[in-house]
């Protein structure tokens, strides 16, 4: 009885192993978008570009190779032969390298001082005509 149980577990493991491996896209080398993470995935024409298409979760291909990564963290992914940019939070992805840690160093002294200017001061203001 015990040996039958052992055989069943072993067989189950042999069947499940490739499936689990495929879920992690173990067979795909390099950086890869494993699957969609959000109900819909937006595809962009450039890292800082416009949205060109939205795919439902089940339409997004599994194990799509990541071609490039922009400074704003957008991922260039090969979707059915066409390259699109995807917001990284919309996909489960795997990077070969390590991502840099997020840290903050707050200046204690800066609490008592304030910036005495406005960001982008004067941008877009109409230029006065006439007079000095």
């Amino acid at each position, binding site marked *: 009885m015990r040996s039958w149980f052992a055989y069943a577990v072993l067989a189950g493991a042999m069947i499940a192993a490739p499936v689990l491996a495929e879920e992690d896209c173990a067979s795909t080398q390099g950086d890869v978008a494993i699957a969609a*993470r*959000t*109900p*819909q995935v*937006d595809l962009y024409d450039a890292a*800082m570009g*416009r*949205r060109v298409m939205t795919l439902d979760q089940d339409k997004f291909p599994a194990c799509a190779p990541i071609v490039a990564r*922009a*400074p*704003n*963290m957008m991922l260039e992914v090969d979707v059915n032969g066409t390259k699109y940019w995807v*917001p*990284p*939070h*919309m*996909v*489960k*992805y795997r990077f070969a390298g390590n*991502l840099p*840690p*997020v*840290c*903050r*160093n*707050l*200046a*204690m*002294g*800066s*609490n*008592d*001082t*304030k*910036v005495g*200017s*406005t*960001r*982008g001061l004067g941008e877009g203001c109409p230029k006065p005509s006439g007079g000095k």
Partner: protein
Amino acid sequence: MPRHFSGDYLLRAAERARRPDREHMQSLRRRVPYWFVVILLFGFAAVQIILNPFGFSDLTQRYTQDIADLLIDGPYLYPETGREQVSVALVDDASLRSLGMPWPWSYGAQARGLDALLAEKPRAVVVDVMFVDPRKDDTISELVDEIGRYRKAGVPLYLVGATDVPAGAPPLRRELLATGVRVLDPGILVNQGIVRQYPVSGSCLGAGARNRAPCLSLALAVYRDLYPQQPLAPLRGLMELVWGTRANPFNAKWMSVTDENGAVHACAEHQDIGWSARMWLAFFDPASVRSACPYTSVIPAESLIEGRDDADIARLAKNHIVFYGASLSGVQDRSFTPVNGLIASVFVHAMALDNLITFHGRPQQNVVTLGSLTLDNNTAQALAVLPIILILGWIHVRGLRRAGAARERGATLEYVLGKLLEKAWHWFAFALALAVGLALTVWAGLSVANWVQVVFVSVEFAALLLVGLPGAVWAYLHHVAVGIRQLEVVQKEQGA
């Protein structure tokens, strides 16, 4: 004209006022009526509390509030109930550098940030970034779609609107307004440069908002929507903010503090201070007790956008009310708080909501509401001081009536007993006032800032009664007005 108001009488009264009979006055001091003591002390208290001479009353109130936050409430008393439910997703200068995205972000980029937040399954999201400028940006449709995604996911989304737009202009972009999204007034209050209070009401913004007037301020509106099981108390006046001081341990994991010498410290370092050291520093070097790390948990925007599989981010966002805001140099949206110094104003809203959650919809206030009657803090303090006057005055008058000939004692013993009695009398008045103040906090929700004057005034009462001021005033007035007439009667009786 009655005899005692004749010219002769007035002349004599003036003479008595100029040269009072000390012996006669001494005997009158012991006979000061109880009602006179009560009226004199109440008048003294009313002048200090209501007339606020030299702004002394205001200054002591707010200074005490700050010290209470740094010394007692923040480190020891304020529970972490709210902190477990509220987070701030923050875009700061480091986020911009890390993402290589200049500010202001396009509407599309903001939509991606909000979508990244939605992916973490928050309970609600409050966007403290104003989308009001009519700039040319084709990606606004992405933000409109994002509002739809929130609606589909059943996650409440709140935007903030501008209150100082020209008449007839919308409080935010018309495209966004047309989605029917809730729009709130992000106004906060600054008291002597520091954020200590929070408004209860705000402008009615958004579609159909005018019909809902009067409208609540941002934190109150969010609380009312999300915590129907603990309904918001009918609030009048202002909310008094209690600032937590213990930075969320998650913040301490990725934040550190650099002092003026360039030495790097952990966030918790400024909080692990013993009560005695804290008391000393809070009075003599408050800046050293302040924490640069915020109390509310912070989710860095780049971590969110990066979609990194981070258990901490998931824990801070999932089922939390997340405020989405920015802290950028040169963008004037920072406020000075008593416990953090300068900090992004989004934390003020987060702290106000934290207070509401922690106090179950009954935050500390600057007014006392009794049914339909609302008393401002001056009236409440003046009334609160009355029982203290009645008790101290009664003990004082009783002591005067009972005072007999002093027992023969050694000079040293007399001195020591006198000093001990003096101290005990002051401490008694202090304890009495403290008890009344704490009762006002517990039963009426009045913040310490709004009853601390009762304590100051009560200790002054103790000093005034100790030196016998009411008796002296009574004796003088009685002597000037009546005293000599009685003496004349006595002299006549004695056949002088």
